[in-house]
């Protein structure tokens, strides 16, 4: 077995640990991450187990005296993790592509050697799965983007991007829930409330939910 087949586990200073699964960015791997999250969240000293994109962050309630046993537990947990198929709900989000908020639409088209219309139709085609929440309150990382519209993250992050912006970062896509800094490229926007701290569960969407983007219009 080569090292590529094994997870990567690293410290995030003294307050958290990161587990990165080997293999591809796909739903079967993500389902095993969700399973590992359920298991690891019950371990003593763990505050939260937070899925990322085929990875998992553990935050510490109490700092572990040593980290080797936690690393071993994560490795074992991954080997035992079965695919956890969460049956989420499906929502449709109406998107205005391009315009002021989606100002990188042309740049993504140029980078990928596609027309603006191609980028839009490729982006709106799949049924995306919410892989994880993160970044800022209510933000969802989506799996299922067509690799033809991959675009590397920005060289220097932007200090501020609009709320509701639909953007691409590397081979991932997502919708920002509020205005803020970003290293991604916005190609459109949507109006929808993703987060409200007064709701019993503050985020509208959860891992396992699915999203379909509907093309409202394309501003060139």
């Amino acid at each position, binding site marked *: 077995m080569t090292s590529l087949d094994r997870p*990567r586990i*690293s*410290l*995030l*200073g*003294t*307050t*958290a640990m*990161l587990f*990165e699964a080997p293999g591809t*960015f796909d739903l079967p791997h993500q389902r095993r991450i969700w399973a590992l999250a359920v298991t690891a969240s019950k371990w003593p000293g763990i*505050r*939260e187990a*937070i*899925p*990322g*994109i*085929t*990875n*998992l*962050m553990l*935050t510490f309630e109490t*700092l572990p*005296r*040593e*980290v080797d046993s936690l690393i071993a537990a994560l490795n074992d947990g991954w080997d035992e993790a079965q695919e956890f198929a969460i049956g989420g709900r499906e929502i449709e989000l109406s998107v205005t592509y391009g315009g002021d908020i989606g100002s990188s639409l042309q740049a993504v088209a140029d980078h990928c050697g596609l027309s603006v219309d191609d980028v839009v139709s490729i982006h709106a085609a799949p049924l995306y799965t919410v892989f*994880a*929440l*993160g*970044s*800022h*309150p*209510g*933000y969802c*990382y989506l799996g299922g983007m067509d690799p033809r519209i991959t675009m*590397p*993250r*920005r*060289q*220097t*992050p932007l*200090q501020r991007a609009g709320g509701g912006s639909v953007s691409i*970062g*590397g*081979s*991932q896509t997502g919708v920002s*829930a*509020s205005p*803020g*800094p970003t*290293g991604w490229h916005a190609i459109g926007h949507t109006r929808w409330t993703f*987060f409200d*701290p007064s709701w019993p*569960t*503050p*985020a509208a969407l959860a891992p396992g939910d699915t999203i379909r983007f509907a093309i409202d219009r394309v501003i060139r």
Partner: protein
Amino acid sequence: MIEILSALGPTSIQDLGRFDQYRFGVGTSGAMDDVALRAGNILLANDENAAGIEIPVTPFKLRFCRDMAFALTGAEVEAEIEGRAIPPWWRSHARAGDILSLKAMPRGARSYLTVCGGIDVPVVLGSRSTQFRGEFGGLHGRPLQPGDILPCASASCSIGELGVEPPDIMLARPNAAADEITVRVVIAGEYDAFDGATQELFWGGSWKITPQSNRYGYRLQGPAVKPISPIEKRSHGIVPGVIQIPPNGQPIIQMRDAQTSGGYPKIATVIRADMWRVAQARLGGRLRFEQTAYADALAAEAEMSAYLDRLRSDARLLEELRTCR
């Protein structure tokens, strides 16, 4: 109650933070210098998680609407009430109508005002800290403005004065130069993706804190630190202290209002016990990084705990002494 009379920078209400909402994309917020907030609350015999006001810019002015014990901790400030100088790291007493004025901040970057009982804004998702990005917590989820009235929990506090030794004396570490602060870091996931010469640049650098540094992150300026080949990580959780290297090679230290996840490569993470040092580093100042093993980071934590324990026991002893008399 307290009325804000003047606030220039992003002054905000913070407690120790919101630590268990990462799964909804909600970061910790909380006092950048949590040691200073704790010390202020210890001086007032408050719950150590009671909310205070984080003041990053002077001049700052507020009016106390009733008699109240308070403390200023964190940065060294020139402060006064009605012409009377108020020393930092000291418990003082204000009468109704008194105006507290912070005129200058000769050292450090953030001052904390704690009051007896704490600032009594509603607890949202487990904390009173201001979540700027989510626009909740604190006072309406935003920075404080002149005219804001802050509710204070009513609590009976001792009114005698009392001071404590600040951590920059008690937990002093050798810094290479004035206006340069050395912080300890544990190496992170992508450290080995940088070649030896580049790693040396990172350790050897005296990193300038640019004006684009704030509660979200400290953007540093120095030699370009670039991995052997470009890295695009899948998005994963990050915590305050993580030092990301965006493609321009200029490190960013994630701070309390940072995003909860990211994908830039991570070279190292500032240990929790040194985050207050970063929080008190000024714009234009310099940081240097010192590699630390996890076991040594735990020792630094223990040292921090011992310092706080000493404050707690000193404050308690002094109260007992007073009641005896």
